[in-house]
Every structure is written in C-alpha cells, then in structure tokens.
C-alpha cells in the first residue's frame, strides 16, 4: 500500500505530473493573488491598519496592522516572481503542456519520463524556497521582481539570496522540461502526424520550449554572478564609487549595473512570450472546436509563431530605454519591437477571422476565449507606446506599464488558462464542469479585472509610479486619479469572490459533474480519441494511433459527421 502511494506521488506518468504541476501552480497563483490584494488595499488606504488579517502578518511586517514599507516591497517583488515563475508558466507550460501535448501527438508519454518527474520536483523545491524566504530574518526579496542591481546586490538579509537560489532551481526545472518537450514533439509523434498536422497548441508549446531552453540560461548566469556578488564579495554589478546611504561602499568596484539588466531582460522578454504562446495555443484549440470550422490561416499562424519566437530574442533592451544606454541602441530595439507586433497581430487576426461564418457554441471555454481576444488586443495595443523610446520615457515604471502587461497576462493568459481548464476537464476527469457556475465565474472575472486594470492606465498617464507604498499620495498633480484606488481594491475583492465559483465548480464537478463520454465537445484532435482519464502507466491509447488528417477537419463538405478526428481513416 505504501509503495503504491509513493508510486503515485513520485509518478513518472506525464498525466500525473501534469496534474501535480496544475495543482501546485494554482496554489501559487492563489498565493500571488493574495499578496496583490494586500498591495491594492495598501494603495487605497495607505498607512491605515489592515482589518481582520493585519494582526496575522506579524509585528515586523505590519506593526499595529499597518503594512510597513519594507514588507510592501516584499509583496511587490514576490507577487511578480510568484505569478510569473511559479504560477502562470508552470500552469501553461508544465501542466497543460505535460498533460495535453503527448496526447495530442499520439505519444505514450514524454520522451524522458523520469526527467519529467525531476522537473516537477525541482519546481516544487524552488517554489518552497521562495515561500520560506518570507519567514527568514529580513523577509523575502524586496527589490522588485526584476531584482535590479546594485540594490539587489547590497540588499540586507537573506531574502535576495534565497530568491537567487530558488530561481536557480526553477531554471533547472524549466531547462529540463523544455528539453523534454522538444525531444517529445520531434521524436514521439504518432505515424502520420506530420509537422503540419500538429494542432496549433503543440506548435505553441514547441516554440515556448525553445524560448525557455535558450533564454533562461541568461538568468542562470546572472543569478550565478549575483550570488557571487552577495556571498563571495565580487563586484560584477557594483560600479566603482558606489555610495550607499551617504557612505562610500566598501567594494572593489568596476562592475556594471546595466549588465544585470541586459542578462535579466535577455530572459525576461522571451519569458513574456513563454507566458502568452501557450495561451494562444489553448485559445486556438477552443475556437476551432467551438466555431466548428478549421482555423483561418493555420499555416500563417504557425509561421508567425516561429517569427515571434525568433524576434523575441532581439527586443529585450526596450525595457531599458531609460538607462541611458544610447540612442543608437534604442533605435535598434524600438525597430525590432515594432516588427514583433506584426506576427502577434497576425495570430490574433487569424483567431478573430476564424469566427467569421462559424456557428459558434457559446460554452464556458468559448466565452473565455472570446474575451481573451479583445483583452489581449487591448494589452497589445497599449504596449506600442512603451515600445517607442520617446513615449516610453514618461510612461516608464508608471501604473500604465502595470495595466499594459496585466491586460496581457490576467484577462489574457489567465483567461486562456481558465478556458483550458473548462475545455480539458472532461478529458482529465470524465465529467463536465458546471456551465452556470462557469458563466458566473467568467462574467464576474471579466468585469472585476477591467475595473482593476483600466484605471491604472489613467493613473499611469497622470504619472503615478508603480512602486509607491503610499499609492501616489505624494504626487500633487495626480491627486484626482488616486480616488480610483478604492474601486480597484473592491474589484480585487470581487475577483477573489468570483474565483470561489471556479474552485467550487472544480471540486464539486470532480465528484458530481455530469458524466462525459470520450469526446464530449465533438473535437478532432487526438486527445479526444483516448479514453477519458487515460490510464496512468505510460500509454494513452487503447490501440496504436495512426493519423490521416489535418488537425481541425470540422464541417467538411460531404462528410457524414460534422467533424473528422485526425485518426479517422
């Protein structure tokens, strides 16, 4: 019995590991969300004692229930870190990728099942290190999620050191995962599954894996160098003549603070596409399935995703226009940044055009997918002024930037992830999720997210910096926009409330959901040919799989059925 339980926990089956990733990353999403509720409350009611939970935060973090500036900085840094590295990426790539990709290509498992398990356990270890860092003296890392040097180099306490250690574990996990995904997709496609018969979701995961594989090592190097700075006393990121709180710092000097930014953003910008590509993949699956027609411009989308992946490596310094790195470099990076918007627009346009002439089924996954498109579009369009140096300079580090990328990842990526959960839930559990609860969850989340993020554009344009403990109270010119902080915090509470519908739906549907057959959505891709809750021991299909068709053969003229699965001969 004990052996059985251990085998379940330390499973090497891609579906179990996918679920482990799923539950762990959802837990971290909740943690990251809780942190940001505190931030929003602090912005609305700076300096006031926090009701109910204020006493639980401890005297050092919140003396008398009032969030201290030091703790506020930890909240900001760890919200970003947890959401990006422990929440969204593991859910989009680790969970969905692990569970769905081998099924969609007709493979028995990942190419390296044991390595796959190791990836998960390294991820969990990295996550725990990050959580533990809240409880060490001095608290968690508090230098922003970007950990800019020299501040992060000289930060007191062990928070930043643990951040680096946790990050190294997460990087190892991602590298092993990425390597595994690429090898799986290249090597384990079923007979007949040629490259252009791959569902778009698989393409998206494939390019994502390359981004992780080639971009993450830059942060690995940066973390090693900063670790040396903090532990051994080198000064890679500490310039000569550094003065800290009025005292000349006792360092050898000669370092370069910009080096950290270059290394960080060399990862950081491809990471943005790691956040968004799997989401686009999920949306493409849901849209093709619910419009009952093939995706418009499938090949164009595949080529675009390639271009996107390549260009994402040559835009990183558009995060650094304000550093004085020089106008020639800025000119180069703003040009590449404008170019990279083209493939993104192609993909989004192809998804929207896919709706044209379809008989659309408005189920919960499709509602999330439909909302994804305008929300992601809004996030993308508001990014253009940030990609041009002239307009970025006044907007840099304001709430405008926060609104911009949250429109991409919150009602963008996270909506896509919700769509994916509702869409693939019957495959994983053999039961449907409740539609009514799903619609309440959708509508509530959509409204609350917009009430949270839309006012940030206004505040940002008024010049409110995004890192202020007092939420901008020191800005006389921005006073009129500060009252917006109050509806924003209530919307954040609302957003939390509407997530309860999702959690209840998830848990109740596990036991009491309507029983689904193997292919409840009448979909064409291979995962729907496997039995629901596929067996948990390397091997997903009852019979050997052979693929004869393109991924989205819906409403084929003259066909007997409305859809032709990829393996239907």
């Amino acid at each position, binding site marked *: 019995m004990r052996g059985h339980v251990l085998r379940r926990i330390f499973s090497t089956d891609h579906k179990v590991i996918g679920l482990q990733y799923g539950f762990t990353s959802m837990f971290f999403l909740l943690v990251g969300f809780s942190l940001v509720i505190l931030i929003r409350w602090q912005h609305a009611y700076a300096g006031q004692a926090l009701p109910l939970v204020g006493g639980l935060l401890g005297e050092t973090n919140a003396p008398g229930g009032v969030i201290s500036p030091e703790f506020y900085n930890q909240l900001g840094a760890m919200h970003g870190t947890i959401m990006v590295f422990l929440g969204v990426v593991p859910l989009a790539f680790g969970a969905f990728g692990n569970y769905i990709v081998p099924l969609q290509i007709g493979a028995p498992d990942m*190419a390296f099942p044991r390595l796959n398990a190791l990836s998960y356990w390294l991820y969990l270890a990295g996550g725990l290190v990050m959580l533990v860092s809240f409880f060490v003296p001095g608290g968690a890392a508090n230098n922003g999620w970007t950990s800019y040097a020299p501040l992060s180099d000289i930060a007191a306490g062990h928070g930043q050191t643990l951040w680096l250690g946790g990050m190294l574990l997460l990087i190892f996990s991602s590298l092993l995962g990425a*390597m595994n995904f690429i*090898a799986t997709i*290249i090597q*384990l496609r079923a007979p007949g599954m040629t490259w252009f018969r791959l569902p778009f979701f698989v393409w998206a995961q494939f390019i994502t894996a390359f981004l992780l594989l*080639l*971009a993450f*090592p830059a942060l690995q190097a940066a973390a090693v160098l900063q670790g040396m700075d903090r532990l051994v006393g080198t*000064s890679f990121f500490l310039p000569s003549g550094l003065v800290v709180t009025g005292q000349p710092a006792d360092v*050898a000097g000669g370092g370069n603070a910009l080096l950290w930014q270059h290394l960080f953003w060399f990862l950081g910008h491809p990471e943005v596409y790691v956040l968004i590509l799997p989401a686009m993949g999920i949306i493409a699956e849901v849209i093709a399935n619910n419009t009952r027609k093939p995706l418009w411009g499938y090949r164009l989308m595949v080529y675009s995703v390639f271009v996107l992946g390549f260009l994402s490596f040559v835009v990183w310094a558009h995060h650094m226009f304000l550093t004085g790195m020089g106008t020639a470099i800025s000119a180069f990076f703003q040009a590449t940044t404008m170019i990279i918007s083209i493939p993104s627009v192609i993909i989004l346009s192809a998804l929207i055009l896919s709706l044209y002439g379809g008989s659309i089924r408005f189920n919960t996954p499709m509602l999330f997918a439909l909302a994804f498109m305008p929300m992601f579009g809004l996030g993308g369009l508001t990014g253009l002024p940030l990609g041009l140096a002239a307009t970025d300079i006044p907007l840099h580090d304001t709430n405008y930037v926060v609104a911009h990328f949250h429109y991409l990842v919150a009602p963008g990526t996270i909506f896509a992830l919700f769509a994916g959960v509702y869409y693939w839930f019957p495959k994983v559990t053999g039961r449907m999720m409740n539609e009514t609860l799903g619609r309440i969850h959708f509508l509530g989340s959509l409204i609350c997210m917009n009430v949270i993020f839309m006012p940030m554009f206004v505040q940002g344009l008024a010049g409110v910096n995004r890192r202020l403990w007092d939420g901008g109270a020191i800005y006389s010119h921005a006073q009129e926009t500060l009252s917006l902080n109050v509806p924003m915090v209530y919307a954040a509470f609302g957003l939390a409330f509407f997530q309860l519908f999702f959690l209840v739906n998830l848990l109740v549907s596990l036991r009491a959901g309507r029983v689904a057959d193997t292919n409840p959505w009448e979909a064409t891709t291979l995962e729907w040919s496997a039995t629901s809750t596929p067996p948990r021991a390397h091997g997903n299909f009852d019979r050997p799989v052979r693929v004869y068709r393109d991924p989205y053969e819906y409403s084929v003229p003259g066909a007997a059925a409305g859809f032709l699965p990829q393996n239907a001969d």
Partner: protein
Amino acid sequence: MEIPYTTEVRPDTGLTNPKLGIWLFLASEVMLFGSLFSSYVLLRSGAPTWPVQHEVLSVPLAALNTVVLIASSVTMVMAWASLAPHAAAVRDRLRSPNARAMASPAEASAEADSLKRYRLFMGLTLLGGAIFLVVKAIEYGDKFSHHLYPATNNFLGLYFTLTGLHALHVIVGMIVNAYLWGPGTRMWRSEPERFANRIEVAGIYWHFVDVVWIFLFPVLYLL
C-alpha cells in the same frame, strides 16, 4: 507501454531520444557560458585598467590542463569505440533462446576483451578529469596563498566564477562516467545497445566540457 526511440533511431529524424536530448541540453549550456563570456567582454571593455592576465595566472599549468582534458576526450571516444561495434552482436546473442550455445569461444573472448578495453579507457578518462581538478586546485591554492581572491578585482572574480562553474561541469561529468565505469556497466549484459548509447551521450557532454575549457584557456590566460 515502452517509450519508442530510446535505443533505436527514429527513421525520419535520424535520432534517438537521448541524443537529441543531450544536444538540446548543450544548446542551453552554450547560452549559459555564452552569457558569462559576454559578461566578461562587457566588464573588461568597460574597465579603465585590466590586469595582465598571463602575469596573474599560470599559463604552463593551464596548458598542461588543456592537454590533459583533450587527452581525456580522446580516451572517452576510445571507450565508446571499444564497445559500440559489438553491441548489435551481443544483443542478438541475448535475444536468441540458446544464448550460450551461440557464442563461439573466439567471439566470447573478443567480447570480454572489448569490455576490458572499455573499462581501461573509461578509467583513463576519469583519471584525466581527476588530474585536471587536482591541477585546478593547485592553481586556486596558489592564488589564495598570494591573497588573490574573487573579491580582489573583477578579473579574478570572473576567473574564479568561470573556472569554478567549469570545474563543476567536470565533476558532474566524472560522476556520470564513474557510474558508467562501475555499476552502470551491468546494462551491457541486458541492453548492450542502450549502454553504448549512454556512453556516447556521456561522451558528447564530456567533449562539450572540453570545448568550454578550450574557450576559457585563451580568454582567461592568454588574451
């Protein structure tokens, strides 16, 4: 159900999973060391003064280490070459029902010899790695005895970081090789082709570690 293409080559890609996997892993390693070399270039080009590197470090010791590491790469190939040509024959014999009867005394002794040669060359590879680390430790000790530490200046910081990370890669490679030299060898008697592939994959990694050193040597000692 078994994972396909762990041992046999997938016809349309021409690869086994482990071989593709190790190349992908090395791609990420190239980016890691590439980032560190870029950091070196940026810090050095921005520095008003830079130590004369070959006066601080010992070029003869590093040259010796270069020879040792390249030699260990050669012995690694020879370890693989002593087994790989026999893998198919051993597999066929293992699969046939009357395994003992099939192997003629000449064949059996050739196979036994090949395993002995493998152990010898893999042992030499391990020895090469060990000599490299000992020489490296002598170099480090020499620097410390002259009060030259990573914190002394950025050149020494980069020197210790880059060579330290490289030494870590040598140690990891030695652990893998030691396993293949010792307990891992038993796989030869059950899945000979898979074992030969393992040696090849470990060898690809070992050559990469070698290549990194071939870049480190001129960059840190000579330029």
